[in-house]
């Protein structure tokens, strides 16, 4: 059984009222345990609506969303679902609540009635996993945006969630903060096998995932590994998206007759291809 199963899920805001809006339209997909899935789509494509279904913050208008087999509409199970799927939102200032970092991380397990020795252990581990141990007694509002997001991640780790959903968690961060969050996400995924659903507007970040879902008007229009998705530059641009810079250069160079693999993805691959075999460069 997949960790996340979505079947014919539709979500309509203001159903039957003026301003009715279909945000998700008959969406079906599943995400296995341990996957790192990026979600792309223009503003208004339904990405955030999808994210909120994954821990029962929103419920389907029709269709179903199941987390580890539990239907999100089972009201009695909502806390079981939220122990399985954690969320990190866009604005770091909207999700920290306590006056001290370690209290903030402890908030989730405390609410679940976890014994205090166990909470202590989880908080220590969670802070260590996001490299924030030395900030344990700081006030969250004195931290940088990237550090606040790391605390938010630690909060979900302390809940021992199997999956973390990142809803544009790097959108408000500076470049250093962005890089630091992405590297922590990659490490949690690789070392702890955390399932990651990563919503972003940054194509370079999406390229780090195992699989990319592309949404458009609430529908799933692409579902493939980054190498495959980023072969379709024209289609992506038509959806208001972009391709990573290395991919754009790849396509321009190929059009100018430079021999490059058509699924080349990263800057490192581009450098290797162009410098390693300089002779393979020109077609003539």
């Amino acid at each position, binding site marked *: 059984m997949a960790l996340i199963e979505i079947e014919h899920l539709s979500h309509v805001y203001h159903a039957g009222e003026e301003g009715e809006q279909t945000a998700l339209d008959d969406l079906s997909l599943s995400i296995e345990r341990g996957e790192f899935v990026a979600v792309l789509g223009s503003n208004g494509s339904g990405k955030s609506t999808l994210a909120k279904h994954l821990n029962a913050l929103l419920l389907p208008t029709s269709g179903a969303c199941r987390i580890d087999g539990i239907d999100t509409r089972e009201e009695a199970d909502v806390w079981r679902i939220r122990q399985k799927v954690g969320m990190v939102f866009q604005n770091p200032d909207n999700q920290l609540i306590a006056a001290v970092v370690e209290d903030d991380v402890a908030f989730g397990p405390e609410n679940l009635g976890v014994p205090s020795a166990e909470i202590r252990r989880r908080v220590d581990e969670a802070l260590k996993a996001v490299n924030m141990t030395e900030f344990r007694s700081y006030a969250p509002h004195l931290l940088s945006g990237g550090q606040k997001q790391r605390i938010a991640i630690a909060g979900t780790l302390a809940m021992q969630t199997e999956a973390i959903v990142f809803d544009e968690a790097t959108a408000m961060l500076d470049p250093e903060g962005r890089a630091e969050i992405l590297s922590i996400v990659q490490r949690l995924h690789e070392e702890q096998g955390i399932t990651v659903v990563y919503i972003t507007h940054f194509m370079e970040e999406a390229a780090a995932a195992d699989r990319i879902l592309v949404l458009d008007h609430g529908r799933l229009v692409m579902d493939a590994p980054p190498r495959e998705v980023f072969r379709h530059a024209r289609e992506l641009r038509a959806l208001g998206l972009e391709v990573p810079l290395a991919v*754009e250069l790849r396509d321009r160079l190929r059009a100018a007759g430079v021999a490059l693999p058509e699924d080349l993805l990263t800057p490192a691959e581009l450098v290797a291809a162009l410098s390693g075999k300089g002779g393979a460069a020109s077609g003539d």
Partner: protein
Amino acid sequence: MAIELQDVSFTYLPGTPYERQALRGINLKIQEGSITALAGHTGSGKSTLLQHIGGLLHPDRGQVCIDGADLAAHTKQEKRAALAACRKVGLVFQYAEHQLFEESIYEDIAFGPRNFGLAETDVEARVREAMARVHLDYDAYRDRSPFQLSGGQMRRVALAGVLALHPAYLVLDEPTAGLDPRGRRELLQMIRELHAAEGTTIVFVSHNMEDVFAIADEVVVLRQGMILLQGAPADVFAQGEQIAAAGLRQPELMRLLSALRAAGVPLSAEETAVRTPAEAAQAIVCALKEKGGRTHAQ
């Protein structure tokens, strides 16, 4: 005519345990007609600086002058001059769409000009013009609720509300944060068009170095409340170590081209500082031909 900051220092919450000096002796002249980017790590002082230019904060020490008028005025006469100077500055906040409040797009954009005391016919002309500037069709959108637009469109309405005041200086805090790639490209394009058509001086804060590289002709890099680097983007970003010391990263295109150069692709230093992928591709093709030619000649 220009925005001039002389020896500007500012401290938040002085005399409390949270006291923090945000600006330390800033001297900066922003030339009329330029597009100037203020870049820096979180906490470097860039937003504080922006709020000084907008007249929202006054320095503890030093002066902020717009076209020669000191914004921190004391006498009645100075205050009048300061108010007139402040009105030349249009300030667009971060996530400006959160400040929309009216029932229709027309009313939201008309709010500022009406507050300035313009007659209704002039207000209408300003709204039309501002909507055209942000590529929103007047007849199709004027009566629509701003809250039914996409995030990118809402931000454009907020921008139009400021443009309707005809600012000589347009000051923007993180104008593209949170927008999707198309929204980002369109917004930068609008800023560029406005600059070309009206000669509006643009000052913007960004931690997206791609945006800075794409439209700025002057970059000011701040670090710990002081100016670390200042100059043309290509020159400033070429100083990789200093950029890293400021907690920033070089634009991705420059990093990629520098990596190619380091790996032996014969690109010149100037070629690693080109601003668009199209120029970069052309430079790479030329460099590869040169390299290929050399290899054959040997």
